[in-house]
């Protein structure tokens, strides 16, 4: 077993009486360090506006989500023991994530395409989207608190 067990009498996965799976302490600290590094990266990257530099929208969102998903997978795999546990737990959690993705995709399929066939279908009471052309405060200016 790659994950050496700490308690001496442990190691029988299938034994119905010995049920604890103890993860080595250094794994927990390594994951913790990786999470801190990920946080530092995601904050640092947010001060660079890739959207402007590359001229492509949502690059920053993409980078931030890659980092966040990596962090989430680390938490799930090690802190939440999904790597060692019965796979049914991972399937349960993943199915929620899949239905979340469906929720996103199908809702966006409506809200991002209104008014493209019949412009009355995209009518707004007052089109707040027009405001985005006004006053572009171009570079990220964070207010200091």
């Amino acid at each position, binding site marked *: 077993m790659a994950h050496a067990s700490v308690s001496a009498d442990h190691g029988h996965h299938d034994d*119905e009486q010995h049920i604890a799976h103890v993860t080595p302490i250094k794994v927990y600290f390594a994951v913790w360090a990786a999470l801190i590094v990920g946080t530092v990266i995601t904050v640092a990257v*947010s001060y660079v506006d890739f959207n402007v530099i590359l001229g492509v929208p949502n690059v920053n969102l993409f980078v931030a989500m890659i980092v966040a998903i990596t962090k989430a997978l680390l938490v799930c795999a090690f802190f939440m023991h999904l790597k060692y546990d019965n796979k049914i737990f991972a399937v349960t959690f993943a199915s929620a994530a899949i239905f*979340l993705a469906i929720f996103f995709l199908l809702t966006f399929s409506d*809200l991002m395409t209104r008014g493209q066939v019949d412009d009355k279908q995209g009518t707004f009471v007052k089109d*707040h989207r027009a405001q985005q052309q006004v006053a572009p405060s171009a570079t990220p200016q964070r207010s200091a608190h």
Partner: protein
Amino acid sequence: MSGSHHDNPYLAHHFDTPRQQLEANKLGIWLFLGQEIMFFSALFVGLMIFRSWYPQMYHTAAHELSVPQGAFNTIVLICSSLTMALAVRWAQMDVPNNNRTVFWLCLATFALAGVFLVVKYFEYSHKIHVGTLPGKFFDPSNPEFPAALKQFDNAKLFFGFYFCLTGLHGIHVLAGMGVIGWIMVRARRNEFNSKNFAAVECVGLYWHLVDLVWIFLFPLLYLVG
């Protein structure tokens, strides 16, 4: 029933083996975590929709949030996840004084959760001070209202989502503190050992979910404007 398993005081009457009982408990809590994801889902969907509809408003409003405070809270929650994971680890081990270690690790987790809420309090009170609040409390006439936001009369949408998401997450933090406190009481009574740790593990799983939600909330609200 005269089965030998009734000699095990930790085994409920309708289970046959400790493994069956542990896996049932864990499957139950994982399903609960799955429903928590779906519970938060609509807020995330709505937030991202309005971000796509009104990128300039979102950009400007997001920059009114304090990244240092948000980042600090992210670190606090990551540390609390570590102490919680270690508490589960010690609850699983038959070593001397393991319940004492569980108690102190849970206390550390509890304290870090408290720090998170204190920082949140400072963030909220700043917004109350300048009037960047949701719905009918949104107040552009406040003298300290951020000048950059005055041109967006739909900016209250952003703060509606900010307060709903962080408020709901904060309620989950409070609930987590409650169940961690319950684990501390039971650790004081020396209840946990390698045959009886499911309660600590389930509370731990819940606490990691609270961390997971924040791992996504922080960049989406504070960073990707």
